[in-house]
């Protein structure tokens, strides 16, 4: 099977979109935080917490959408901690973010052991099933890739549009972006920079957690340690790659996912037999770095990203 066959197969693109879905949620979450001026390095840990919380909720008898809601709430809780420390208290966003990642990851593993002390292999749940959208899923290639996914993937795509509309077409989005560009301009209008930034971090963190929950409730049907595996960090790069714009970030997520799906398939070709598999594992990251260099040089970083705002400071 050569490269062309892979790129033209529906199963390849179906896999790429599936792999992209958690990245889309988490990238949108990070993008919302950064647009308001807060770098959220808690993303990796919040995804772990979301993956566990959603899965555990379903395992304990809740419905699948209930599980998504629980994951979202768990993420929002960590977002509340993050934003309380970084926004009103103005602490270092790097230190707080990494702290949240360590805290959320460790708490999750602890909760897992508390909830399931005896088990050796984690129990499975009945995960989201693919839902074929009538008519559209019959289209060649993209029908399979885009319209035969699980409902959570559809939600991810809907959210991209929704976040776009809110950011660019509503007063709320305008105020949020301004908080990330020049918080004094927001304060001068009598709006609360603290409220806007905290709200953005709390909601953004909720989206990150849903991204994590996608892994346990849609991509797989169980929870493993290390299952997030650096996806959060990739999303931080994707925000830069997407120049802080939801649409471009979506493209970036799909691109990265396509590289990932591609390397799995190349491993199974004759080429893959002769080269250590780690080389292929590395490939999406390497290509992402190259794409990042090419794409993000002219990007406009939110001017007040990582700049704490203190009212009345002289």
């Amino acid at each position, binding site marked *: 099977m050569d490269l062309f066959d892979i790129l033209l197969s529906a199963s390849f693109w179906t896999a790429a979109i599936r792999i992209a879905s958690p990245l889309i949620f988490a990238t949108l979450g990070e993008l919302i935080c950064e647009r308001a001026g807060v770098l959220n390095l808690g993303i990796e840990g919040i995804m772990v917490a979301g993956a566990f919380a959603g899965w555990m909720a379903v395992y304990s008898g809740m419905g699948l959408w209930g599980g998504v809601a629980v994951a979202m709430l768990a993420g929002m809780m960590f977002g509340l901690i993050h934003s309380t420390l970084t926004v009103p208290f103005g602490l270092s966003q790097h230190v707080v973010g990494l702290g949240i990642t360590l805290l959320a990851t460790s708490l999750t593993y602890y909760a897992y052991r508390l909830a399931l002390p005896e088990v050796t292999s984690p129990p499975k749940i009945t995960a989201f099933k693919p839902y074929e959208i009538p008519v559209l899923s019959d289209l060649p290639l993209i029908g399979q890739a885009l319209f035969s996914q699980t409902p959570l993937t559809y939600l991810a795509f809907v959210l991209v549009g929704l976040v776009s509309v809110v950011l660019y077409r509503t007063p709320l989005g305008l105020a949020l972006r301004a908080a990330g*560009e020049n918080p004094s*301009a927001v304060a001068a209008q*009598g709006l609360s920079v603290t409220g806007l930034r905290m709200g953005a971090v709390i909601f953004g963190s909720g989206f990150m957690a849903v991204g994590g929950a996608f892994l346990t409730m849609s991509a797989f049907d169980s929870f493993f340690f290390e299952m997030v595996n650096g996806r959060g960090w990739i999303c931080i790069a994707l925000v830069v790659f997407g120049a802080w714009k939801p649409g471009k970030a979506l493209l970036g997520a799909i691109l990265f996912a396509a590289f990932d799906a591609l390397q799995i398939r190349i491993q199974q070709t004759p080429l893959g037999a002769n080269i250590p598999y780690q080389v292929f594992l590395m490939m999406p990251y390497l290509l992402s770095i190259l794409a990042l260099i090419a794409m993000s040089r002219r990007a406009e970083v939110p001017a007040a990203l990582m700049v704490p705002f203190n009212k009345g400071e002289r």
Partner: protein
Amino acid sequence: MGNSGEAQVVLRLNAITKTFGALTANDAVSLSLHKGEVIALLGENGAGKTTLMNILFGQYTADSGTVEVFGRELPPGNPRAALDAGVGMVHQHFTLADNMTVLENVILGTQSLWKPGLNRAVARDKINELAADFRLSVDPDARVGALTVGERQRVEILKALYRDARILILDEPTAVLTPQETDDLFETLRKAVALGLSVVFISHKLHEVMAISDRVLILRHGKMVAERNILDVDKHSLAALMVGAEVSAPKVEPGTPGSPLLSLRNVTTPDQGNAPGLKSLSLTLRAGTITGLAGVSGNGQAALADLIGGLTRPANGTLELDSADVGHWSPREAVHSGIARIPEDRHKTGTIADFNLTENAILETYHQPPMSRRGWMNWGEAQRATQHIIDTYDVRCPGPGTRIRLLSGGNMQKLILGRVLEAEPRIVLANQPVRGLDIGAVNYVHSELLSARKRGAAVLLISEDLDEIMALSDVIYVISEGRLSPGFARDSMTPAELGVWMAGHGFEAEQAHAS
């Protein structure tokens, strides 16, 4: 204008007091503003003008005192309430988001956050209408980052008008404007007053206060010390009221030109983005002379200052010190060659805000004895040297350990003067040395430059203020797009004649004449 006796009082401040730690920024300040009136709030830097207006606008909370707008008391510390009451403020440092469009900046915060749509079309119409009414032409869809400073100020004023402001507060609005832009701004303010708005104009530029205001209120050290009808005062009496004593500019005697110390011969440097480089420019700085460089900002002044300061090297042409071609050329080399640099922006390149006075005072000498030996700092010596500068140059500060961020612009500039002049430099590169300073500090800086000249130093004075250039310089050059005019002797040119060169005329004839 001027009938303030009968007109309605739109704004009243009652005994506002505000302290920051030990500093009393406002001490029981009261004022009233009438409909259709322009009042000027005059005072030196640090007199408490900006603090007072920030209290009025709700950005600070006063320790005591009240603010009444149209007869209703404003709740303290609430900018929203001030906006809703019809107060619009144009800050000294603009509160605009550069990456957003004019339209987005203007409508920010004017609609409920939970409304679904933005309604750009309606907003665009209203902005265009206001722009026409008040002569504030600006493209609503332009990105603010791409606008000139004057245009950005128009956006700030539009923001206030868009919110139906009836009282406009402008904090040092002309500090960043060219004379032409200042005229445009005054035109807009006159339109606003004619339409029944009232204006508070904060400034320390006396001729502007004289030009635009009906009444002037003078703040000194946080206290309201005088209130005058503009018809009853002149520039001189205002200056005396502001400083609290008679002030006089230093007397300038003609200098005695000596030998050439620094020469540029047909020097060319590359353009830096929008800023032009030097175009085959020749200039000689002589001992005992102040050479004035006039010109509109952004015409190659930065390139020339960077070159002399050692930050860049000529791409073509030569740079000669004492008639010998300089070899290696770096900032440190420049300092060693006896070039004193008073940088254009004392905050960005002149000082390090969170370093203390001692650390800032030795930025150019820390690497050599007596400040350090064999890689070890001698802080005792550094502190002694700094204390000497503080005493000699009258730097008002708690002590050498104070972070320089806490000093006023004038005191910061005095420390920089001390840093560079204590070494008795042979060449002084003074780039906008009095920008943003009050009269007292301006006169001080000028007298220091004159005494450096008397000592035999060659001074290059770069300024956008033609009055300053004409008052101090023995010889005046005009720079335009990196080209240099011929040198004009003191008093040989009128401001209008220099203005023609500043606008870029005359250079072609000069070239034709030369070839």
